[in-house]
């Protein structure tokens, strides 16, 4: 019961914040992607309650909002971990062995790509080019880029985060 109340509280908060944010846009549906980008940026995912608010505000079906969210890889329906590790699988990184990094990250975190660890600390993603091809292969932790990466560097970075939790 208690946890339910908490959840509702959190939802209520998100709902109010999203409503407030929506005021800066007119209710034309051309702003949908811009709005979703802001919500994604703020919460790390697009909560259901936000989807409902956006659909109401733009006067479009919830299904349309959902359709746009699932079309674009940047939008997520699930919260990301506190530390989101993203392995670049752009061509420049791929030919320099980023696949090995991905395999290692999966093994080390015990999750598949696109998933979050049970404790909510780590999530694992792949990205198609962060544009730092000169440093290939690269991976990012939240927005920090690690270049000329090796399996050893990846291990160190993850271990370091774990040690400081």
């Amino acid at each position, binding site marked *: 019961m208690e946890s339910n109340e908490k959840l509702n509280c959190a939802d209520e908060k998100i709902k109010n914040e999203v409503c407030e944010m929506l005021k800066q846009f007119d209710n034309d549906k051309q702003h949908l992607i*811009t709005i979703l980008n802001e919500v994604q940026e703020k919460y790390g995912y697009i909560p259901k309650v936000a989807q409902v608010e956006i659909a109401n505000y733009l006067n479009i079906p919830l299904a349309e909002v959902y359709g746009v969210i699932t079309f674009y890889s940047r939008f997520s329906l699930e919260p990301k971990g506190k530390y989101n590790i993203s392995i670049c699988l752009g061509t420049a990184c791929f030919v320099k062995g980023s696949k090995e990094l991905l395999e290692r990250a999966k093994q080390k975190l015990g999750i598949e790509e696109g998933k979050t660890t049970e404790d909510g600390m780590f999530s694992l993603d792949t990205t198609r080019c962060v544009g730092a091809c000169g440093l290939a292969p690269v991976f990012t932790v939240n927005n920090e880029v690690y270049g000329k990466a090796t399996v050893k560097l990846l291990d160190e970075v993850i271990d370091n985060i774990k040690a400081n939790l």
Partner: protein
Amino acid sequence: MGKTITEIEEIRKYKRAELDLRVNTAANTREKHILVCQGTGCTSSKSPKIAEKLEKMIREKNIDNVRIVKTGCFGLCSKGPIIIIRPEDTFYSLVTLDDVEEIIESHIINGKVVERLLCKDISGTVVNKLDELPFYKKQMRIALKNCGVINPEDIDEYIAFDGFKALENVLTSMSQDEVIDEISKSGLRGRGGAGFPTGKKWAFVKMAQGDQKYVVCNADEGDPGAFMDRSILEGDPHSLLEAMAIAAYSVGANKGYIYVRAEYPIAVQRLKIAIEQEREYGILGENIFGTNFSFDIEIRLGAGAFVCGEETALLESVEGKRGQPRTKPPFPANVGLFQKPTLINNVETYANITRIILNGADWYSSIGTETSKGTKVFALGGNVNNVGLVEVPMGTTLREIIYDIGGGIPNKREFKAAQTGGPSGGCIPKEHLDTKIDYESLAQIGSMMGSGGLIVMDDTKCMVNIARFYLDFTVSESCGKCTPCRIGTKRLLEILQKICDGKGVPEDLEKLEKLANDVKKSAVCGLGQTAPNPVLSTMKYFRDEYKAHVVEHNCEAKECKAMAKIMIDPEKCKGCDLCKKVCPVNAISGEIKEIHTIDQNKCIKCRSCMAKCPFKAIG
């Protein structure tokens, strides 16, 4: 309150004099500018912190003749973070925070170059100046002219180097048709990949009937491994905005949109700053330079969908929808954004416009080949020594780019293939290294110009696996609208995966080729039509490798792990017999204390022996 042309001219004069030392090594001044690259590559290796520390030290030491300038990309990304000191043009590479003090103490205070931070060319010779580096010698910078020279966040620096002069000329002394004629005569073609003549596109939009027209910039650089547009956006955003204004005037539009990847936060930020500054100066807004022409620009962020680089999908996305391509015709020139006539050009195409207006169509068309004029920017990456951004005249050969500019293949490996055009392009083998690059010649050898990604691969790469990699990309990026792309690419990927897993049979090659050609002919948009290119081109040039995969089940490059032979290294084997005991199929033979061997015909590659071996002798 906006500025008049006269006021802009004043800024240009005094600012140009002030910045002379940036482009003139003989400038007679005690001033020094320390240029610190703030492109994505160098930023990733902490260049903002280096700039911060330089600034702090200069304040602390009361040095009054030195200015720290944060610039866009210098191009040689693999040597980042890069610092250049002007006017002497000293090029410091791989600079770390710990080097800052020495640079200030030695170079700035004592006038002594910090030798150990200088770049070496491939032969090991120390190179002092940027211009002397082989990487820059064969380059010709038109689209990237201001990148690495000016501070992209300062509109006055842009003005100093002829900024907005082209727009002034156009608005005060050229008719719409005159501008379009000039662009047509220059021979400029779309740099997004397809190479449609830019002037013709502009003329179509001008002729289209409509109460409202739009100009759009395609800055959704989705090709993985390409960063040309990003560097222009980050290093010289005003040149894009100015060109969009010129385009808008020519076609009769008053509103522009830039559709840019959200994955490029630095580019987005600099664009926002640039737009704000231009509004303040009255270069965007109502009655620009006191004329009847009004124009404003809005930024729209993409959200990670490769297909949105296709122009009609992009328009859908700007409208806030799923980015699914429309059927053509009608073309965007007639029915585009919000159903209105719309001009769409790519960032690099726009980046050429101001130079064409200022230097003339004749000058521009004197550069390049018969059919392809001007220069092309490539993002050179992969197994090559100098990874970075290069701009070369059309007609330069691949060999010149990879060996003279790129410095060749690292680790003494052999060149195997160059991939242009990203997931839409093909792999070019050794025998075509001397092809002069232009739109037609690349298409002829089964690849395409594409947006400018150029990935070099050495002989450790398996071409089947590379084709599989690209198909994996297109399958996940297919929008799902048309069947050939949605299902066809998926089936192509399955066949390739099967081959890479060592389960391929010779008939798979025929199936692969036929299906690839079918998808190419029947898909709705450019993404689907070009998706089979990596398969077709690798099959054409590396057929033997495919055959080895399906007949002998052998991957020469050993990238396809399922086919990799598990062997015992006789140097490391101590004959402990543990592997023999663990092998479930009795494939290992050898007496105790003697070297063991694996019978490849019996081995099922379960890798149990590898895990058991205490001497890491099995691999």
